[in-house]
């Protein structure tokens, strides 16, 4: 096996895995506090990319000159804020009234929300793939020998790392983060000690949606073609990543995302690109059969 080629695949896999990791964090956080799979999360990621597309010309007026770093940052942050608002809105309008219902009811509703977002976007923006503007100059970074690392790939990995550290800080060091962790352990006890569970759940949705939006913008840097159905497959792969890492576990989701991304790139590179979308499902089935709690998850006994 050619070692340079292997490292090349690894780099490609890491930048893909970073995207999955960012989306997976949203799944895992929502699962942590509410114990349900937010099926519409992949569509928030898609909306993130579409907001980026819509904001790009406006931001270029505020920050003139092509490829300005503040402009790209402003697009990223604005899109994250918009998606956070949408995430909170969905939770408030749809998921909150269903909070005490069976999990299956919530799952079906989430599928409904997902289809609704996709099809409304399709009606408003058209079903055809759109070209995403080049926010940063994409070229190969020099001085790496035979290895080709694009500036876009490096940006994806760098921004993901920054966001991961930011999230780690929020969850571990702030009061809201502490409330999130407490809520995932025991919601009733949280209420008893005066935590406003609704605020914490809204905040969780905002955080998860903002990260998904960032993933949407980042993926568009690397593969600049976006369409309303683009959230389906990455959404499911990110969910698999969350399960792989142990659902409800934040570092686990990041690890799971990277593993899925690297595995997928390696299988595409060395076996066959035809099975790209089936790999994640195969991993999911294996994980659920042999280690259903995930790599970093703790097992929970089901109570009667």
């Amino acid at each position, binding site marked *: 096996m050619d070692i340079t080629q292997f490292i090349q695949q690894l780099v490609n896999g890491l930048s893909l895995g970073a995207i999955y990791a960012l989306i997976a964090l949203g799944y895992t956080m929502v699962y942590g506090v509410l114990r*349900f*799979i937010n099926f519409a999360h992949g569509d928030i990621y898609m909306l993130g990319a579409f907001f980026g597309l819509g904001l790009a010309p406006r931001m270029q007026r505020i920050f003139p000159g092509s490829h300005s770093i503040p402009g790209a940052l402003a697009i990223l942050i604005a899109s994250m804020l918009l998606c956070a608002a949408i995430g909170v809105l969905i939770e408030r309008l*749809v998921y909150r*009234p*269903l909070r005490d*219902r069976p*999990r*299956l*009811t*919530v*799952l*079906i*509703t989430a*599928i*409904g*929300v*997902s*289809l*609704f977002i*996709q*099809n*409304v976007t*399709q*009606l408003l923006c058209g079903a055809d793939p759109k070209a995403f503007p080049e926010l940063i100059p994409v070229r190969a970074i020099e001085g790496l020998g035979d290895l080709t690392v694009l500036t876009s790939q490096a940006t994806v990995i760098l921004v993901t790392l920054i966001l991961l550290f930011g999230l780690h800080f929020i969850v571990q060091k702030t009061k809201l983060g502490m409330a999130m962790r407490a809520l995932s352990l025991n919601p009733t006890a949280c209420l008893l000690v005066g935590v406003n569970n609704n605020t914490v759940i809204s905040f969780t949705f905002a955080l998860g949606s903002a990260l998904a939006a960032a993933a949407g913008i980042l993926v568009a840097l690397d593969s600049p073609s976006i369409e309303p159905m683009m959230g*389906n497959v990455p959404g*499911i792969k990110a*969910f698999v990543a969350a*399960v792989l890492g142990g659902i409800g576990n934040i570092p686990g989701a990041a690890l799971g995302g990277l593993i899925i991304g690297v595995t997928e790139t390696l299988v595409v590179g060395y076996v066959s690109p*035809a*099975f790209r*979308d*089936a790999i*994640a*499902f*195969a991993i*999911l*089935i294996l994980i*659920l*059969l042999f280690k*259903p709690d995930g790599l970093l998850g703790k097992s929970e006994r*089901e109570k*009667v």
Partner: protein
Amino acid sequence: MDSRLILLLSLVASGVAALCSGWLDPYYYDVCISIGINIILAVSLNLVNGYTGQFSLGHAGFMAVGAYTSASITNALAVKFTGMPIGAAEVVFVLALFLGGLAAAIAGLAVGIPSLRLRGDYLAIVTLGFGEIIRVLILNMDFLGAARGLSVTWHNTNFFWTFGLASFAVYVVYNLVHSTYGRGFVTVRDDEIAAEAVGINTTKYKVIAFATAAFFAGLAGGLYAHYKQYLTPEGFNFFKSVDIVVMVILGGMGSTAGVVAAAIILTLLPELLRMLSHLPWIPEPVQPWLENRLILYSLLLIILMLTRPQGLFGNVEFLRKFMAARRAGK
């Protein structure tokens, strides 16, 4: 009135309908066949989702297995049977349908057995995954036409086979879940742990539910293949599975009569809305919203879950009440 008598009557009715179907406008004929196929799909999925409480999102995958299997069989035999009497071809057609159903049932076992330890939303995702894996596999099988699609030579699906098999599916599922043996399905749905505790083999019930539902989905797939005469893997994607799930949910999980009604309503509704959207007084910007079936379905799902999660018909069994009343009157 015995349910076997109802089955017999519906078989005769489908035969009569088949004889009269020549007068029907091709468009209405097409809608009617779709209704029949959708009834089979919805009633069979209801066995898993409604009666056994195992949420499955991969029904289109089983339909694909049945469609491709039966189409391959009839395609392979097409040359040999060109000069044969009509009866022989019909026998081969029905055999092909059942073999397609069997292949789908085997796929159902393949999903059921490893997914047993999962429940709720995990199971939903795994079945979704299996459905997608089946689609990806077909996409990579060149002898099944891969992405180009597969042409089906025979065109044997008619009113008799469609509604006959639909009645058969309703009969089997209804009697299964209302038999002494079949109450186990409902027990698994209502409380799996309690069912296990009183000695019900929940694993066995889940596998049987999956395999039976897959068998009928395979039959429906075979009917679809020999009606449309053209199959593509894209026709059996996640959205097709959602279509069937919406029928089960609208009808009410665990109500055969409700699900049949929902299958009819949801097949007609997009057609009605399409006609409506072209009325002159409907403003042009509203038209695409009315025509988009998936926006309608997604809103329907959300509103149903918020206001009436038990579905339109809940757990009401019209047929059962009717029969009980008849028995009491005797």
